C-alpha cells in the first residue's frame, strides 16, 4: 500500500516549472526527490556558503573602512621565477590545481555510477593528491608571508587588517581542503574494498563527496577573485 502510494506520487509529479515546486513542497512526504544524504550535503553547503560569505564580507568591510592603503596583492603574492617577479604565480598554479582536481572528481562520480570501482578509486585518489598538493602550496605561501613579517595584527606592506583577513579566509578554506582530502581518501578506500557493492551497488556517496569537493573549488573561485585579484 505504502509502496504503491510512493510510486503513484512519483508518476503524477509534474516534471517542470513552478507546478513542480508547488507539487514537491505540498507532498506531505518527501520534498526533495534525491537521496537523503545528498539533500543533507546540499543543506550543509548552503550553510557553509553563509560562513564563507561572512568572512569575505568582513574582509570587504575592513578593506573599505581602513584609512591606510591596502597591500597590493599582486606584489605581496608575487613569486621570483625566471629571473623576475611574476605576480600571483603560486596562486595561479594553485587555482589550476584545484580546478583540475574538480575535473578528476567529476569523472570519479561518473565512473562510480558505472560501478567501475578501480577507475573511481584511482580518480578519487588523484583528486585527493591534487588537494594535498594545494594545501602544501598554501603552507608554503603562509610560511613565506610569515617570514616576511605578516601577522594577523601587522604587516610591512600596509593596512594591518590584511593579515587577519588573509589568515582567516585562506586558513578556513585550507582546513576545508584538508578535511576534503581525508573524506575523499576514506570514501575511495571504501569503494576499493567493495563496501558499496555489498550495500547493493549504490555509489551516491561518491557524488555526495564530490559535491563537497566542488564546493571547496567554488569557494576558491570567490577567494581568488575578491582577495587576490581585486
Amino acid at each position, binding site marked *: 500500500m505504502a509502496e504503491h502510494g510512493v510510486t503513484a506520487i512519483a508518476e503524477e509529479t509534474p516534471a517542470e516549472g513552478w507546478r513542480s515546486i508547488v507539487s514537491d513542497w505540498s507532498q506531505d512526504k518527501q520534498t526533495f526527490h534525491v537521496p537523503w544524504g545528498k539533500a543533507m550535503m546540499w543543506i550543509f553547503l548552503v550553510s557553509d*556558503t553563509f560562513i564563507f*560569505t561572512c568572512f569575505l564580507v568582513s574582509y570587504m*568591510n575592513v578593506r573599505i573602512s581602513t*584609512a591606510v592603503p591596502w597591500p597590493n596583492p599582486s606584489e605581496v603574492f608575487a613569486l621570483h621565477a625566471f629571473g623576475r617577479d611574476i605576480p600571483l604565480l603560486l596562486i595561479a598554479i594553485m587555482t589550476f590545481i584545484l580546478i583540475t582536481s*574538480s*575535473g578528476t572528481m567529476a569523472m570519479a562520480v561518473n565512473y562510480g555510477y558505472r560501478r567501475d570501482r578501480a577507475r573511481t578509486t584511482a580518480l578519487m585518489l588523484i583528486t585527493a593528491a591534487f588537494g594535498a598538493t594545494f594545501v602544501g602550496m598554501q603552507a608554503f605561501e603562509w610560511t613565506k608571508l610569515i617570514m616576511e613579517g605578516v601577522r594577523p595584527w601587522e604587516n610591512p606592506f600596509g593596512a594591518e587588517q590584511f593579515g587577519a583577513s588573509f589568515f582567516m579566509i585562506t586558513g578556513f578554506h585550507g582546513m576545508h581542503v584538508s578535511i576534503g582530502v581525508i573524506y575523499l581518501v576514506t570514501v575511495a578506500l571504501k569503494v576499493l574494498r567493495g563496501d558499496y557493492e555489498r550495500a547493493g*551497488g549504490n555509489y551516491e556517496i561518491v557524488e555526495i563527496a564530490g559535491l563537497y569537493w566542488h564546493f571547496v573549488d567554488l569557494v576558491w573561485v570567490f577567494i581568488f577573485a575578491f582577495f587576490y*585579484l581585486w
Partner: protein
Amino acid sequence: MATVESGQVHGGAASHGQQHPIKIYIVIWALLFVFSAFSYFTDFLDHGWLRWGLILLFMFLKAGFIVAIFMHLAWERLALIYAILTPPVVLLFLIALMAIEGDYTLLTRLDFFSEPAPITASEH
C-alpha cells in the same frame, strides 16, 4: 555498452544517479582553465571598472559552470535548485549593508585622524 558510452542511464542500481557523458566534464574543465587564465590576466589591468567588471564576469562564469555541471544542479528538480539558490540571495543585503557601513567608518576615520592637522597648519 553503447548506452554506457553515451552516458545514458542503463538500469540496475545505478539508474537513479546523475549520469552524464564524460565529454561534458572535459569541456567544462577546459572552459574553467580558460576562464581562470583570463581572470589571471585581469591582474595586468589597471585598477578600475574594467578590471573589476572582468574579475566578476569570469568569477560568475566559473562559479556557474561548477555549480551547474560539476555539482549537477542543472539536472536537479526545481524544488531543490530554488531551495539552494534562494537563501544566498539575502547575502546581497549583507554585502550592501556592510559596504555602506565600511564607507561610513572610513569617512569617520578620515575625519577623526585628519582633524589635528589643519589646526596646527593654520597656527603657523
